[in-house]
């Protein structure tokens, strides 16, 4: 099974690439535009996918991926299931600071709370951060893009202070508190 590995390609100069994985393909295009427009200091490439594994045909042309973001819509059960099955296609090296979860609609109803707990448990098991975003307004999308860019900068090694992705992820990783565990 071909796994997506983080270090198999050479990085490009002054460029960072982020892969947005979303089952519904709605938020990712808006987020991609915001990401590309906001960052002025370096080039941002965005790849959009529905799920992993990525098509083999694109392997040669695909640049090195610095950050993989899984967009989960908490209103849909299928979204979470698709992310869980995609995780199996990632090399374990990716989880050292190169994977991040972004959830939307975390405040809309009771099923979303249960799914948010499952996402957080999943993220804690893989030592990745979870971001909550509001995707229905332009401001919400821009705010999510700015946060992602901050993480991307570190993952791609662009941060001026010598912060590595591994160091950042150990600070930002999701933790599941004991009262959530007892659910």
């Amino acid at each position, binding site marked *: 099974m071909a796994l997506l590995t983080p270090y198999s390609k050479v990085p490009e100069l002054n460029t960072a690439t982020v*892969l947005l994985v979303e089952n*519904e*393909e709605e938020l990712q*295009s*808006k987020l*991609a*535009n915001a990401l*590309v427009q906001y960052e002025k200091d370096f*080039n*941002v*490439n*965005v*790849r*959009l*996918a*529905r799920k992993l594994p*990525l*098509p083999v*045909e*694109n392997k040669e042309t*695909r640049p090195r991926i610095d950050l993989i973001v899984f967009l989960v819509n908490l209103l849909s059960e299928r979204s979470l299931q698709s992310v869980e099955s995609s995780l199996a296609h990632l090399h374990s090296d990716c989880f050292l600071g190169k994977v991040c979860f972004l959830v939307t609609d975390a405040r809309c109803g009771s099923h979303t709370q249960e799914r948010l707990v499952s996402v957080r448990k999943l993220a804690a098991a893989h030592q990745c951060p979870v971001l909550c975003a509001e995707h229905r307004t332009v401001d919400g999308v821009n705010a999510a893009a700015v946060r992602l860019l901050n993480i991307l900068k570190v993952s791609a090694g662009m941060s001026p202070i010598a912060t590595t992705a591994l160091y950042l992820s150990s600070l930002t990783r999701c933790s599941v508190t004991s009262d959530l565990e007892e659910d």
Partner: protein
Amino acid sequence: MDTQATSVLNRIIRRIPNKNIENLLKKWSCLSADQLRALDYTRPKWMIVEHVISFCEENRLNLKHITTLEMIYHIENPDQGTWHACQLAEAQGKSVLFTHFIFKEQFKAHLHGVIRHISIKMKKHEDEAIWIRIAWGDNFSKPNHLKPTYVVHHLHTSYVFISNLMAKHKIFLCPALVIATKHGSIKDGHLSTRSLTAMRDLPLRRYQQVFPNAHSRIPQERNTLSSHPCIGKEHGDHEEMRHQMSCEAFGHSPSPKLETAVYSLETRYRGKGNQTLSDRKEFFRGVVRFSSSSLLDSLRHCVASGMAEGPVTPLLSAITQRGRNYFVITDKGPGVSSQASAQRP
């Protein structure tokens, strides 16, 4: 003018917004230019109705003229009420001179011969469609103009679209249509919508169809947002393929505006869980109903966005392929769990 005429006129004028009344009256051309100028469309409706009635009485107009007005109104606004499609079958050798004139004469002659009191009005529209308005009476009472039936037939096609027909009049209308169009029989088309344009476009294939093609893909009207050079799509090919598949099944937008599709099930229950239901010999009758403000657009979006997996099931693509929206699904043979089949009325 008698009471029936005034009530028909009243009903027409009340239904239209004030700004459209002027155009309608101009098309009608039964009121003089001075009278049209004298009408003030900013007044409340009841005043406009009274003015128009007084002008009609001045010009000595009668029920015939009012029904012409109603017909013009329906031709301009065809998407009202519920229309049903019927299909003519067994076309007999048509004479070379089959024109709308012959159709008209034969249709009227047949119906007048069968019912004593009936009022028929026919009008040929520019796109080869004949509009017929029928007010039914019977052997003893005058025609009722408050519940007319409208029939639209496109010459040289085998479809007839009918609105507001009562069951007891169907036995008169159907033979008249069959004889007048020189066919052998007429059967139910299993298609009903509120919009006449959709009803006409779907079976006559007047929408933008997409045919299977190995090479060129139709351009998608995706948001132009994703044309930034730094944004790349991993599954771009899959997306295009899904889009192509959905447009082949349901047509390119804009597609005919159907509101519902109904599948009547006469199959046996095949679930594993429920003992009492699956052992029965008789059918598990159910009805599956899809509703939407524009059904074909919704189905196309479901397939194109990947919510429904392709290839498109023939049960859904039969809506466009066969031009109907009512299906009866029966069990046929072992192994094949369901197959769409036509139902004779």
